[in-house]
């Protein structure tokens, strides 16, 4: 089942400290206010992220979840990866190697974890044809 809602990919700026986080939040806020927002944050450029930046990511995820949407992270820079590991927040997000992968992940109705336990026969058949 394909969703018709758009997936918005937003590139996070190089520095995500308190000041930058506020600016970024103002940019993102209209996207978060949609019904069931589907957002991907591309963190490939991030070279500096502090506690305020992590707080912003969590806030955005919370806001998206409140409207029955989702926020996924993609292309994490080494700095962002280390800081998310350090603050134990990396495990709260779905993280993808590239923005394209993250966007594709919104396409399936069932989340990956659910799909493991309730496999979709149609998708499996499609995968099987590809493998063949």
């Amino acid at each position: 089942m394909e969703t018709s809602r758009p997936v918005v990919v937003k590139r996070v700026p190089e520095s995500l400290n308190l000041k930058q986080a506020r600016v970024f939040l103002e940019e993102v806020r209209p996207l978060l206010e949609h019904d069931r927002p589907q957002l991907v944050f591309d963190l490939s450029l991030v070279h500096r992220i502090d506690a305020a930046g992590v707080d912003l990511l969590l806030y955005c995820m919370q806001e998206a979840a409140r409207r029955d949407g989702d926020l996924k992270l993609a292309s994490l820079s080494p700095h962002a990866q280390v800081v998310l590991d350090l603050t134990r927040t990396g495990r709260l997000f779905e993280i993808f190697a590239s923005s394209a992968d993250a966007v594709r992940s919104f396409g399936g109705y069932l989340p990956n974890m659910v799909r493991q336990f309730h496999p979709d026969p149609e998708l499996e058949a499609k995968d099987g044809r590809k493998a063949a």
Partner: protein
Amino acid sequence: MDLGGRNSESSGFSDLTPPASGLRGVRALVLVGGKPEIERFGEFPLAQFDVLGRSVLMRTLDRIRAAGIGETAVLSDTEPLPPGPESVSCKFSVAKPECFWNEALRLFRSLSRHSECVLVFRLGAWAEVDLTAMLNEQQRSGAAIMRAHSRRGEALDVFAISSGSQSEAAALLRGELRNERVAVAVHKSYGYVNLLLTPADLRILTLDAFARDCEIRPCGRELRPGVWIGSGARVHRRARILAPSFIGRFCKVHRAAIVTRGSSLEHHAEVDCATVIDNSSVLAYTRVGAGLDVECSLVGLNQVHSLQRNTTVVIEDPHLIGTTTTHFSAPLLSAARWCVSLMPGMLRKLLSEPRTEPVARDRPEAIVPSTPALSDSSLAPVESQTDPYREMAETRRYGNE
């Protein structure tokens, strides 16, 4: 600056070689750094960082002294880390990277003037070379320069250079210890070697020390099997320290913190509440913020080197990684800061109108007769009936307080 003094605690060696009288005519030159691109963490040579309470540099000096070598000179290409090695028995000098090797040659010449042989170390690697055996082999073979090699055949930067061969020594030192143009004999060493090329190697050295694979032993008291604590360390009773772990001198471990799986906190490090230090080394004077998860990392100098991701990142947020201070004025400063934080409240209280106790009115309840006979409205005080703010006044008096 002097180097080489020992703390009152054990120096961390399991079995020290007794001073050998045969090495009296031998002097040592210890070079720290010399290769700006490698063997560093945050611009400092890895040899300057503490491993279980004592730096590789200091431990190397301990080995040299234990071998009975009298005079030692140390040359570094960076300033020593705070508070700096303190001692009495050897000279410590700092040279700029561009003139490092010329300065090394000058020191070598001054040391070789009154000795038969000079041992030259470059740190670099932690190499447990048997110095007595090496010098004996050099004496027997008559080689001008002998270089130690590990059991796997890696060339180590440990040289025994006879004082008579000045020109070869000059060629070797000017060539930054590359021995292409100099004849060098090989001494095979079977001791433990860690090349300390990357921050990950420093972590491996710590784990090897816990596993007793090398001579390095933690400097501190073994509180429980596998848990060493240095003097002056403070661990909250709700914190958990799981073996093998090392808590250095004057460290602070706050409530609900966990230190586990071969982690080490070097001196004056601080771990805030509910932070987990798992399989990691926290360098001296480093403060790790509250609620963090430090796993397989080397943390210090406002940087985190993740061993899993093999990357070093600079953390500028002091809430995550910061530095501690031990300056004597630190408690005074913190007290002053506390006083300043109280000032606005105190000033507000002083400048506000003096609080006046409400005039004790005659409580209407006290005089209002409760008996039906006295319940006549004419007997009730007039004020109690006309004051519309009576209830409000009562509420403010008790509720606000």
